[in-house]
């Protein structure tokens, strides 16, 4: 949609639902991309939603007893179990509706977690819930480290990033492993709708949330959330950083419907060099030319893998006898 009319993104925001389900007064840092992403997600979901939140930045900044920033029903239990609690909520609501003990209308179960609570400690519960096929949407708000506890390395931390448990030093350049590709793992779980998103492309993100919420089964969105505090950049560059992540091909925005891949935003003809993205962030400041070259090559390779999937993979629904 955003490719049809140039600058359409600039004008459509006025048409977005004005209701704020995530109230101001929350304790997120200045310029927090994740808080913005949560706010946008809630607008896309509307009021018939139950949120299950893993421990992490968003849970902590939004639910300081006796206050809550949530205008939606919300529950937090522990760190690794958003998807498991969500499975229980989904099953509970299903039975209660069947028995006529609650109103007979759709209420969507939405689990949210940071990269810690999704990619690492929460991975088992996510895998189990997706495999069982619960009617729930899982949104991972990925700020690429365990930010709430002080910027520690996670499976989603990008190659070469310096974190407090895998820092750059004279004997190390930071994270040596490539970012864990959870969206791909979700596709391998046969999740019917999987998408990547970023708050810097708000309408794309909200449309994906709406689409995912309509799925009668599991769906997964991986939302890159810029953390100015942890990524070490000025808060006002939050949106710009997200945009660069997409335009360099480091975090392409795509969706996978029944196994069929599609890029959802207009990408530049030639991907921007990764250096444009890396140089504005303190967490990559230590990288030398050699490291950046490795990074660039791998990004191109991963992006080409994605393009190949877009080209060659069919929707599973076409494969039915």
């Amino acid at each position, binding site marked *: 949609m955003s490719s049809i009319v140039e600058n359409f*993104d*600039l*004008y459509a*925001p*006025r048409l*977005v639902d*004005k209701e*704020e389900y*995530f*109230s*101001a*007064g*929350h*304790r*997120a840092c*200045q*310029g*927090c*991309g994740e*808080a*913005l992403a949560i*706010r*946008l997600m809630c607008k896309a979901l509307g009021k018939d939603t139950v949120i299950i939140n893993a421990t992490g930045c968003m849970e902590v900044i*939004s*639910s*300081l*007893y*006796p*206050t*809550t*920033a*949530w*205008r*939606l029903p919300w529950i937090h239990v522990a760190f690794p179990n958003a998807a498991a609690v969500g499975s229980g909520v989904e099953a509970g609501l299903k039975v209660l509706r069947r028995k006529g003990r609650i109103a007979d209308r759709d209420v969507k179960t939405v689990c949210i977690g940071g990269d810690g609570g999704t990619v690492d400690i929460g991975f088992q519960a996510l895998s189990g819930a997706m495999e069982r096929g619960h009617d729930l949407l899982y949104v991972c708000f990925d700020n690429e480290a365990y930010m709430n506890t002080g910027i520690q390395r996670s499976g989603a931390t990008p190659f070469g990033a310096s974190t407090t448990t895998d820092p750059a030093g004279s004997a190390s350049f930071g994270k040596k492993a490539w970012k864990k590709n959870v969206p791909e793992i979700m596709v391998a779980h046969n999740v019917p709708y999987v998408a990547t998103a970023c*708050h810097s492309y*708000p309408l794309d993100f909200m449309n994906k949330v709406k689409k995912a919420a309509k799925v009668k089964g599991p769906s997964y969105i991986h939302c890159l959330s810029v953390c*100015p505090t942890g990524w070490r950049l*000025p*808060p*006002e*560059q*939050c*949106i*710009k950083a997200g945009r660069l992540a997409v335009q360099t091909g480091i975090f392409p925005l795509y969706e996978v419907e029944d196994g069929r891949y599609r890029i959802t935003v207009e990408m530049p003809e030639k991907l921007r060099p990764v250096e444009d993205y890396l140089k504005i962030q303190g967490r990559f400041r230590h990288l030398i030319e050699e490291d950046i070259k490795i990074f660039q090559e791998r990004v191109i390779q991963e992006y080409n893998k994605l393009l190949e999937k877009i080209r060659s993979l069919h929707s599973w629904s076409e494969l039915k006898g």
Partner: protein
Amino acid sequence: MTEKKGPETWQEVNLGCMVLSPGNASEYHTGSWRDRKPVLDTAKCIKCGICYIFCPEGCIVQNESGYFEADMNYCKGCGICAHECWPGAITMVEEG
């Protein structure tokens, strides 16, 4: 059930530390956090709503004239609105 401010006796703590008033975090004014504030030049503003969309606090509201203005009770002064404003209608100004 009204939410109480300040220390409560153990008998007054909500069951399971539940919060029964949705969105009452809005009682806490994060505006005290900032050291610079956004100033809107209505001459340049095209009322596109981009600032409203990108505000992490969700504190930018459209007034009767249609201009989007930040609520100073909550604005943390992050500067995203000024940075993203396409016509450059918003400037961040140091606050005393």
